[in-house]
């Protein structure tokens, strides 16, 4: 426990000390909220769908969680470049613990980012059911762990940031745009709704939105089951890969 804790703490300290990163990674969600929220809000309301900010906010919160998580996950690449990874790799502790400490630490910082964004959406007009907030937080946490573990796994396999950007552009971005985070799934085409079922992020976005606003596309148990199973699988694969890293 002490080992997982100290590695968790390390991620938090690194996060708290990089003000530029905190501000930088809040820019994107804000841009999306403002540009889409005010740009599309009218059209959305005229189409009779209700308040767009209420629809969009959970999506942006989920987005913040996903991207912050992946980025802290791939910190492994930096730790390898700057050498610190070696220090943990030769330590006489199981690499599963190292992976868990890193992942939980990264996930915690992603949660903090997401909570900041949640705080920003409220004055912008986001109304939600406070009683259901714990469930919303649970889904955010699951997304955070899933994608930090995914980032750590990716960072353990690839050694340079170019390859990482490729993965971001060709896997994570499409996954995000097709997750229902930005626009409602009900009104879209059959193909889109079909692929939605294979998009892990869709269950996360739906979990956050459903919990906070009551507007589920799937349902709570299904979202939870899919996310818990996927997170376990990624953690398992990730720690296998992480434990075989050479430096």
């Amino acid at each position, binding site marked *: 426990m002490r*080992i997982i804790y*100290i590695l968790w703490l390390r991620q938090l*300290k*690194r996060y708290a000390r990089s003000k530029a990163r905190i501000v930088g990674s809040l820019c994107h969600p804000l841009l999306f909220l403002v540009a889409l929220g005010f740009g599309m809000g009218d059209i959305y309301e005229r189409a009779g769908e209700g308040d767009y900010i209420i629809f969009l906010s959970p999506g942006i919160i989920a987005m913040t969680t996903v991207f912050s998580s992946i980025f802290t996950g791939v910190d492994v690449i930096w730790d390898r470049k*700057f*050498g610190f990874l070696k220090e943990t790799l030769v*330590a006489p*502790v199981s690499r599963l613990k190292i992976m868990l400490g890193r992942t939980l630490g990264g996930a915690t910082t992603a949660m903090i980012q997401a909570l900041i964004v949640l705080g920003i959406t409220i004055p912008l007009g986001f109304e939600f059911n406070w009683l259901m907030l714990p469930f919303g937080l649970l889904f955010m946490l699951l997304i955070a762990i899933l994608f930090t573990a995914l980032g750590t796994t990716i960072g353990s396999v690839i050694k340079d940031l170019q390859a990482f950007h490729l993965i971001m552009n060709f896997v994570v971005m499409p996954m995000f745009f097709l997750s229902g985070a930005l626009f409602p799934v009900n009104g879209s085409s059959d193909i889109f709704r079909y692929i939605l079922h294979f998009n892990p992020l869709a269950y996360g976005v739906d979990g956050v939105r459903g919990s906070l606003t009551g507007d589920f596309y799937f349902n709570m148990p299904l979202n939870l089951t899919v996310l818990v199973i996927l997170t376990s699988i990624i953690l398992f694969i990730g720690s296998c890969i992480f434990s075989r890293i050479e*430096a």
Partner: protein
Amino acid sequence: MIIRITNLSKKFNDFTAVDDISFSVEKGSIFAFLGPNGAGKTTTIKILTTLLRPSSGKISLDGCDPVKNAKRARRSFGIVFQDPSLDDELTAFENMELHGVLYGIPKKILGENIRELLEFVELWGRHKEQVKNFSGGMKRRLEIARGLLHHPRILFLDEPTLGLDPQTRYHIWSYIKNMNQKEQTTVFFTTHNLDEAERMAEKIAIIDEGKIITQGSPQQLKEATKMGSLEEAFIKLTGHHIREQSPSHSDKMRRQHQLLKH
């Protein structure tokens, strides 16, 4: 013998960095692993410390096989890497503390041990400062202090005194020597400072282009080459030419091009 290496080889693709080497290190001794740039010293240390898997051969570290039983092997050694391995965002104290936790040093004595070592390397005055503000020599001293923190049975030092001034080098070596005598710590080190090797090492192995070319005490190496100092003996044994660093990718392409032309 606390370290035993038998017919060890390491290939990176088609390049052989370590080529069928065998030697062993006696428990409680100070052993210098010398060789020109690119000879394969760091690669050998990385294999011994479970950071790389060997291509072939057998190794044993404190009675266990680092390939099969990595976790047990990791319990037996401490290492100061040739390249930086600190977390620049953390403070000096936090770097030490993290190390102490990873090696299971009890909380009660950890703080005091850290203080002692940081005082020894004269960094206690700045222990609350982030490492990124440190000079090269300060970082090096911190790396050494960290490697010593958990009092390992075997200490790997890959060019530990790189970039340190003579006073600091002397200071640190006397500490290590003392630890070696008091705690029977086995010291396995590399250096390009041959005076240092001559002064400290009981036994030396010289590796060149992945192969062990000779082993023995400093005295034996000098006698065998009929030279007055280890430095002269080293040059006699390894030749005068500067080792080309492993060919870069473009070098390889050029070479292939030339081969094709002929």
